[in-house]
């Protein structure tokens, strides 16, 4: 299945309503993700950012609306199409979600073993290359438990890249990291976009990170239960809705 016209958005959400733990948290979400951009999803804690992400990657069924990759609805397609759509993105979960029973290298090689015809040697070479890409070349044989928070996130990004998807989802990539490691991760995200042509959708609380790497930011309003702004971070700070401007200003001061 092709990925369609390169000028078309990589992802489109139409009238999306999402819920969590038996309650609806966001509705009426309409947005597109363009190829090669970094889109940040921001908003107060509990407003549904991570929940939205779980719907975009197909882990949860939307209450209403559609998630379209090209012309295909993620939640209403046959199994083969659904599998093909999954190959279009990689996901980094908030705490990394590395499979703890495996080494870091095995974490990267499992998707390759399941979904590619690469030989064991090729899989290892590719895994080592992906780890080097995220600055974790020495981590191949380590257990996930032996990694620091920042290393775990880098390893998780490397695993998300294992099948070479054009789109990466990152859930709170800089949460829990010291400023140095957070900046390194921002640089890595910029590198993925600028040098490797990846599209990145990231959920984040880190407003400095939003201004450092995001091309656009989507604000989810907890009170309105919908998105109230989508623009470049600078434009949102200058002329966004009052609540968005305050959120960004306070975030930058924090």
């Amino acid at each position, binding site marked *: 299945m092709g990925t369609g016209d390169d000028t078309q958005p990589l992802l489109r959400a139409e009238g999306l*309503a999402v819920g969590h733990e*038996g309650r609806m948290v966001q509705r009426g979400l309409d947005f597109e993700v363009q190829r090669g951009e970094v889109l940040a999803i921001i908003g107060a804690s509990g407003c549904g950012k991570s929940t939205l992400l779980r719907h975009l990657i197909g882990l949860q069924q939307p*209450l*209403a609306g559609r998630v379209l990759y090209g012309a295909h609805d993620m939640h209403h397609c046959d199994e083969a199409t659904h599998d093909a759509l999954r190959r279009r993105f990689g996901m980094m979960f908030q*705490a990394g*979600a590395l*499979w703890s029973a495996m080494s870091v290298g095995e974490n990267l090689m499992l*998707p390759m073993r*399941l*979904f590619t015809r690469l030989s064991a040697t090729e899989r290892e070479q590719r895994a080592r290359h992906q780890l080097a890409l995220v600055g974790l070349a020495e981590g191949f044989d380590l257990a996930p438990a032996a990694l620091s928070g920042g290393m775990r996130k880098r390893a998780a990004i490397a695993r998300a890249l294992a099948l070479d998807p054009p789109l990466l989802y990152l859930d709170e990539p800089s949460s829990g990291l010291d400023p140095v490691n957070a900046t390194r991760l921002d640089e890595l995200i910029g590198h993925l976009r600028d040098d490797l042509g990846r599209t990145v959708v990231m959920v984040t609380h880190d407003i400095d990170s939003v201004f450092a790497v995001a091309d656009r930011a989507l604000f989810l309003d907890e009170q309105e239960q919908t998105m109230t702004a989508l623009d470049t971070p600078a434009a949102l700070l200058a002329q966004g809705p009052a609540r968005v401007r305050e959120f960004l200003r306070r975030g930058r001061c924090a």
Partner: protein
Amino acid sequence: MTDLSPRLSRPSSAQTTLIFFGEVLLALGRLLRGRSRLQRGDLLEQLDRTGPRALPIVLLTSFLVGLMLAYMGGAQLDRIGAQAYIADVVTVGMVRELGGLMTGVILAGRLGAAFAAELGSMQAHEEIDALRVLGVDPVDHLVLPRLLALLLVAPLLVGFGALVGVLAGLPAAVGAFGVPAVEYLHQSLAALTWTHLWIGQFKGLLYAALVALAGCREGLHAGRDAQAVGEATTRAVVKALVWIVAAACATTVFFTSLGY
């Protein structure tokens, strides 16, 4: 705004269990059609931890139960001068009922809890979500290796447990009730029938499956924090034990009513 509440309702615990059983059956169907993502290495790893590592504790408990059965049965039979039948009581009891039951109880405490804790921890740390995002069915990848490993080792564990239990009755019969050792062994062999053997093995398989299903069901559906993992582990053990006792009762009534 449209009322969305019907789509937000969550299945009850019983519905979740039924759905999980259905998913396992579908996964077994995929396995039989050669379309499962079950990894041979995962199965071998589970075989190692379910079989050899569980054997000593199964043998110990079976030995003690066999000894107890011989003393208890012997005391009653002694009153009517029928000590020679101690071997019948112990052999039929261990082979047909207690070998499988003790194996199931030990597996519930040892492996049902471990399965729930492992899978619950994976659930809490989003490791299972990471599998789902890839399109890997956690039932294929995590449940089947554990279920199949238990089903493969259960006949051996039940068989060895029953054998040790029967042999454990020997010193009690000889030492406390004066039954000659040769007579005990002869009587044991005479009491042993293919019907007792296959019913005992069937029950052992059933209990092992229930242990694996209870552990994996609770682990896969655990909450996302440490407390939830602990609760899932407790629920897995309790559920496995209740299911085992209910299955033991139901199968005993069923087979007896059929004349076996």
